[in-house]
């Protein structure tokens, strides 16, 4: 009965821990691996203009819907301008305003994005566009082209492709030539395409964006064509007519409205720069959680101040050490001094590194023991004697640090990181065992403590384990489950097999 209760409880702990773990891993995208980094792109637009005499108002179209990307953050840098974000007809707009300014002005808007294939592909379905008002002789040319293309196409997509092929023909027919006569840029080309598509009652719009790759000091927005086929927005290369979108194409703004408008300024110039960076995947995951509105993140350790995080990155390894301890003592059967002394020693090893940790620990305990035996002759009472041992330990640590510093071995300095009270208690316990049970028992337990400490150190030092526990603290539930299980383990300890071997084989 009790046994089942224990199994149930530890199963419960394990399920809770693993469920949260899987949710964070699979759904929220927290990285399993250590140092997992994700590329992010920072796109900066700099707006410079000469200020006029009066009030200045600057409006910049900024990214709204960006299929394939999610925003990490955005900010603006300007001197003395009031800044606001609004929704306009073409999507989001950044607006800067100032009552007066002198000389050349530069305003920066910066957005940092990361790739997320699951980001929305399109917005709402648009209505059929009204037939555009086109003047003659363009009106006739458009009608002819639409009629011809309609003949040779089956649906919206093939219509668009066919139209683009015609418009890009190196030896265009006269109608096309007429329509292209006042096209002076790729953007106005795409603009005229959307007009023709509108005459065919096909919703289409121009999109402007950037192909994100590496570092681009001067990025030019690329005009692309977006066509709605009744279900989805589809992307077409305005030059080749292919239905495609450049790789890592980040859409900045849609429509044929101008990117920027400056009231009260002149000589306006807009430049874009792209910078690729790598940041910790955890940051991205958290950002994602925040955008989803899940408040699970409030319990994440990464929400704590950096210093506190550092403390917890050590503290959270203690349960791992405790698990090792349980394993070594209850399953293997190694003797040790004190319940958690080896774990604390292992923590000290983290600072001193293993080899020097073991050397310093051994030296400290050996010296402390010999002095403890001298103290024994003074016949001090327990508490004063323990205090004397503690003081001696502190003194020894100081001496070791000084000597090693003189010898130029800086590792000796880290002896100060040993938990001195624990060392003092170890020395006391060891000397008592030494007197009562003999040197062999004392050495055995001392060595056992050291072995467990080393094992705990090894496990507590596994980098990915540390990362895992820090990112997924809920795994403590799983450790708890294991410890609870071990608490009801009634089988033999490994070393008991040797002890009772004489009873086997009958």
């Amino acid at each position: 009965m009790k046994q089942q209760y224990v199994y149930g409880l530890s199963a419960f702990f394990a399920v809770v821990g693993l469920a949260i773990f899987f949710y964070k891993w699979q759904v929220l995208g927290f990285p399993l691996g250590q140092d997992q980094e994700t590329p992010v792109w920072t796109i900066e637009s700099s707006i410079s203009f000469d200020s006029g005499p009066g009030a200045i108002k600057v409006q910049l179209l900024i990214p709204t819907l960006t299929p394939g990307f999610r925003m990490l953050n955005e900010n603006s840098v300007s001197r003395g301008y009031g800044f606001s974000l609004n929704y306009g007809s073409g999507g989001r707009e950044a607006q800067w305003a100032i009552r007066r300014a002198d000389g050349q002005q530069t305003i920066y808007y910066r957005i940092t994005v990361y790739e997320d294939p699951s980001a929305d592909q399109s917005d709402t379905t648009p209505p059929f566009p009204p037939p555009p008002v086109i003047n003659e002789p363009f009106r006739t040319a458009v009608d002819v082209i639409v009629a011809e293309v309609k003949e040779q196409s089956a649906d919206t997509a093939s219509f668009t492709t066919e139209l683009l092929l015609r418009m890009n023909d190196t030896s265009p027919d006269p109608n096309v030539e007429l329509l292209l006569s006042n096209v002076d840029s790729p953007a106005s080309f795409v603009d005229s395409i959307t007009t023709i598509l509108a005459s065919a009652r096909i919703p289409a719009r121009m999109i402007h964006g950037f192909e994100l790759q590496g570092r681009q000091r001067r990025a030019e927005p690329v005009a692309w064509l977006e066509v709605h086929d009744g279900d989805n927005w589809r992307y077409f290369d305005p030059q080749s007519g292919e239905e495609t979108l450049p790789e890592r194409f980040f859409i900045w703004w849609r429509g044929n409205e101008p990117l920027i408008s400056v009231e009260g300024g002149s000589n306006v110039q807009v430049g874009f720069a792209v910078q690729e960076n790598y940041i910790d995947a955890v940051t991205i995951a958290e950002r994602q959680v925040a955008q989803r509105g899940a408040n699970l993140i409030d319990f994440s350790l990464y929400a704590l101040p950096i210093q506190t995080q550092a403390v917890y990155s050590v503290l959270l390894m203690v349960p791992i050490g405790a698990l090792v301890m349980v394993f070594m003592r209850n399953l293997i059967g190694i003797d040790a001094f004190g319940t958690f002394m080896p774990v604390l020693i292992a923590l000290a090893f983290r600072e001193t590194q293993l080899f020097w940790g073991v050397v310093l620990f051994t030296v400290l305990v050996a010296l402390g023991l010999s002095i403890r035996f001298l103290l024994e002759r003074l016949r001090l009472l327990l508490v004063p004697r323990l205090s004397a041992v503690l003081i001696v330990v502190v003194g020894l640590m100081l001496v070791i640090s000084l000597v090693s510093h003189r010898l130029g071995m800086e590792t000796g300095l880290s002896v100060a990181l040993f938990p001195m009270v624990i060392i003092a208690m170890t020395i006391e316990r060891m000397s008592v065992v030494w007197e009562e049970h003999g040197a062999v028992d004392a050495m055995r337990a001392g060595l056992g403590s050291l072995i467990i400490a080393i094992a705990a150190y090894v496990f507590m030092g596994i980098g990915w384990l540390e990362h895992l526990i820090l990112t997924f603290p809920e795994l403590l539930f799983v450790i708890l489950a294991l410890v609870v299980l071990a608490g009801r383990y009634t089988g033999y300890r490994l070393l008991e097999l040797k002890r009772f071997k004489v009873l086997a084989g009958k």
Partner: protein
Amino acid sequence: MFEIVRQLRQAGVLGLNERNCEFIMRLNPRRLYPRVDDKVLTKDLALAAGMAVPELYGVIANQGEVRGFADIVAELDSFVVKPAQGSGGNGIIVVTGRSERKREAFRLTSGLLVTRSEIEHHISNIVGGQYSLGGKPDKAIIEYCVRFDPVFDAVSYQGVPDIRVVVYRGYPAMAMVRLPTRASDGKANLHQGAVGTGVDMSRGVTLNGVLSNEVVDEHPDTGALVAGLEIPHWDFILQSAARGYEVTELGYLGVDMVIDRDKGPLILEMNARPGLNIQIANCEGLVGRVRHIDEIHDPVATPAERAAVARREFPPRQRGGCAS
């Protein structure tokens, strides 16, 4: 490895984890521990139940009383100083006499002479908690020094040969005789090098011995055969052990007894966490006997009846692998 596990399971060998989980935690509620952990209380309870214990000369409960040591032992030539909450036989001093020339000097079992101040320092340590679990302040007991029945003289090197009986739910389940050696420094603890011998429960006769997990025939210091010794007052010993259950109510209990040449078997102490070496000494696992006791358990049986059951039900098995 798994083969050994299987064989041990088959032999009914009890492991430490199983002992802690299935025996101690289930049968020994923690609130009952003081009855065995505090030897002063054990003595009171045992006396009240009419059991024989070594006479108590005095208790020193705090540092101020340490000076009273001289008064307590003023008339005594031999006595034992021990911590009330000690474990594993630690912190025990056995004084067997005084120096002929100087009454202030005490002679220990080993023949060593120690001064009164040395003993007082030791008592201070005991009171300060050096030998108690967790370093709690403790009491020092000064009690009658047992004059051992000569039965174990040939197989003891100084110290205290004692008889350990493991009592399960009131039924004596297994017994062993622990014989001190030179290596064990006069202590009767197996893991300190004492020899343990199994006991034929039905007749009270010693079987082969074990010394640090090896089967031995002879005592390592005296060379005398350890097997075949007939333990006097065996029936009384089993009954006293069985009565230990009424006194302590602990379902898994170790009762340690010594045989005084004048006063007969005396209860030295009782233990809520008896060790597992008794299995090696008897060359038999405990689990089989324990299961048998579970089957025949009779809640209203008297200690004498339970002792009789033990004598009847647990004759020595055919000693296979570990007998020489």
